């Protein structure tokens, strides 16, 4: 589980980069909400990896790799922001809100378990 958390962080950070820059339907976000939540997912995965990875056994500098990926994602998010609708077009508003609330609940669990 400890090392898996590192791979999870890499995976989520990579997904954020893809979401911020890609125009392929499978990666491209369809709303600002989705893009922001993808970024927050990556941040949550970083929190998990920071807490779970056995940093005494691997170089803490590895931490900077997913951080750099999230930074690249943040860069792409700003550039893409103006070209996206706030919520996904064609999806009921309540579904978008529920999607956001579920993510927020997950972040709360991560913060409770791994921070403070």
């Amino acid at each position: 589980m400890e090392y898996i958390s590192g791979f999870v962080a890499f995976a989520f950070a990579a997904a954020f980069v893809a979401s911020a820059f890609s125009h392929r339907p499978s990666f491209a976000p369809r709303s600002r909400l989705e893009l922001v939540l993808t970024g927050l997912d990556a941040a949550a995965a970083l929190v998990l990896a920071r807490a779970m990875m056995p940093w005494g056994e691997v170089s803490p500098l590895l931490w900077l790799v997913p951080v750099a990926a999230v930074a690249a994602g943040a860069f792409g998010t700003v550039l893409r922001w103006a070209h996206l609708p706030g919520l996904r077009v064609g999806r009921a508003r309540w579904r978008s809100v529920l999607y956001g609330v579920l993510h927020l609940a997950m972040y709360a669990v991560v913060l409770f378990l791994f921070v403070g």
Partner: protein
Amino acid sequence: MRRQKKLLVAAVAAAVAVVALGAAAIPRPPSLSAEVSGDDALVAEVRALLAESPGARDRLSVAVIDGDEVRTAAFGATDATEYEIGSVTKTITGSLLAEAIDRGEVTADTALGDLLDLGDSAAASVTLEELATHSSGLPRLPVSVGSVVSSIVASYRGADPYGSTIAELEADARGVALGEKEFLYSNLGVALLGQALAAAADTDYPQLAEERVLGPLGMDDSYVPTSPAELRAGAPTGYTAGGRPSDAWTLGADAPAGSARSTLADMVAYTTAQRDGSAPGVSATEPIAAAGESGEIGFAWLTTDGVTWHNGATGGFTSWIGFDRESGRAVVVLNNTGGNVDDLGFALMEVE
């Protein structure tokens, strides 16, 4: 054009902010303290052995005793630095059983149900010797959805996953089904054993340990807390194997299985007395049953290839003590991280 430039600046600023935050949050696992004291050769030997098992390290105290000669190596610690000794506490509980038998308070075959409120549950029929030799059929821990969830949450938060009352411990015991009567390491079993012995002596476990083992051996800096409120002033906490700060483990009613705190000086006295046969309830060290891959077991004490030993691990500490009566060597290792020290302990037991 100007708008695009502004956008680019904002994007770069966002990226720089993330990098700055990430750099500020870079993991900083503890490393073995550079404040070193003790026997130079032993310090070098410990360093070399630790290099073979990387992981979070911070404070570490080691003693190697040959006959009357005690060599120590301390990293960021003194002889009086306090550590949680975790399951080494079980050897105290084992000694208490041997001592209680000597005093005629109980016998090895006394049923647990004679001393604790277990009704007609399966656990009531278990004998004290079965508990001390981990062959009672009790599971390692009582398993329920609630306990599993709270255990997971506690492990992620670096918190003490124990903390039940004696009544809750008894309720747990009443609820478990017994497995095969073969070696299965059981924290639940030793916790019940300690509480049963305390009940037989009409006292509580910390007091019993103090009166019959710690006190007689002059282990003034050792004690058995059962709640955070019972920790002594300045009681240190440690780090998980991953390097995260961990809470103190005081275990509540499970204290007989692992909540004792001690120092290098006290554990040297304890282990030497076990080796020399002068410790209260020392017959606990004599193997009386098979212990699977560990070899044999007495009352909690394991014997593997002639070395009588026990290890301990809490959320933020690990420990190892052992001795070999034939060679006369005894070893104590106390560590304030979750990093394993078993290999270090066994390696130091090798007679030069």
